[in-house]
């Protein structure tokens, strides 16, 4: 192979794109010709310089911006807003439900919290007897069938029920205050 034929193959030989027989012919000529060897080096240098351009540094944010622009074009905002809208609605229902539940629990708990044994204003008794006393003028004890209930309203929302004793003449007695405050107190 002469210089002219070799130089014609050098551009492809430098990149490894020659056929096997062409490669052998070039490699046989190169040791004999410094001109062709120098030209080969120049082609290889050019390829080397071009190879350095491969990875182009991207300025910060460019990748994200490319994606954002593509996304906004292909997946319109209103679809994303619609999805966000449903998410907000679900969240609102959840919050309202939790708030309602909490309010209910608080209200029910509040009703039960006041002890029935709290002292409440009681109107003046028409009499005062103890739980085990005898009714004046009567042989029976309070608890012997003469017991009746007497209810009254004290504080708003509260209703108390007390046992009472009623004589045949209509007179009735209520327990003494201390009789109310025993271990057998009822909750109202």
């Amino acid at each position, binding site marked *: 192979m002469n210089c002219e034929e070799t130089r014609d193959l050098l*551009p*492809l030989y*430098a*990149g490894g*794109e020659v056929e096997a027989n062409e490669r052998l012919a070039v490699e046989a000529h190169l040791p004999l010709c410094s001109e062709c060897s120098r030209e080969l080096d*120049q*082609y290889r240098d*050019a*390829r080397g*310089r*071009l*190879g*350095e*351009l*491969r*990875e*182009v*540094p*991207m*300025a910060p944010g*460019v*990748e994200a*911006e*490319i*994606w954002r*622009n*593509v*996304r906004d*074009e*292909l*997946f319109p905002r209103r679809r994303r807003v619609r999805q966000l809208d449903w998410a907000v609605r679900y969240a609102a229902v959840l919050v309202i439900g939790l708030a309602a539940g909490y309010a209910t629990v608080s209200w029910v708990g509040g009703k039960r919290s006041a002890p029935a044994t709290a002292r409440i204003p009681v109107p003046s008794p028409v009499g005062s007897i103890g739980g085990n006393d005898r009714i004046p003028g009567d042989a029976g004890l309070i608890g012997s069938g003469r017991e009746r209930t007497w209810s009254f309203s004290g504080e708003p929302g509260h209703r108390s029920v007390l046992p009472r004793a009623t004589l045949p003449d209509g007179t009735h007695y209520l327990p003494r205050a201390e009789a109310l405050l025993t271990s057998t107190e009822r909750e109202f």
Partner: protein
Amino acid sequence: MPDAQEVELIRRCQQGREEAFRDLMERYQRRTYWIANNLLNNYEAAQDVSQEAFLRVFRNLSRFDLQKNFYTWLYQIVVNLCIDRLRKLSRDRSVDLGEIGGVADESQGPPEVGENRELRRRVHSTLDQLPPKYKAILTLRDIQGFSCEEIAQIVGCTNATVRWRLHRARKLFKAIWDGKALEVGDDDGVGAV
């Protein structure tokens, strides 16, 4: 042959899944940008072409044959978009094909140091003087390292044509680099890539 994971990803993209397309873009975004920048020598133009390429990909994904390599199709779109831009630039500037050049805009890229910067500038300047189809071949082979078979798929020609254009492109590049007169023949003119 494409790998199974990518085939599945493309299928999901074909179903219109945003997250799947995001993943697909992540795989190829950087190299797409590199190729575009190599060809156009302009960061902003490279960004525009990258975006446009992915938009076209998504809009035509239903027609994509899953048996083929996705990246050769994507890069074909990128190269064609770049060549269209270079030709338009040539017409707008009313310059000869042999003097086609991109708009070097280094202000948007990261800073480079002295000698490297000068060398890159000279390499880009030399590349910019090549006809678009030779510039494309040289970019794909000597810059991006694709094989001749891959380049044939990307540019849509035979292996033999790729080798011939590569031969011509390297000779032209060396001649310009050495400061010799550029000999652009009839068959070096604008034509299909």
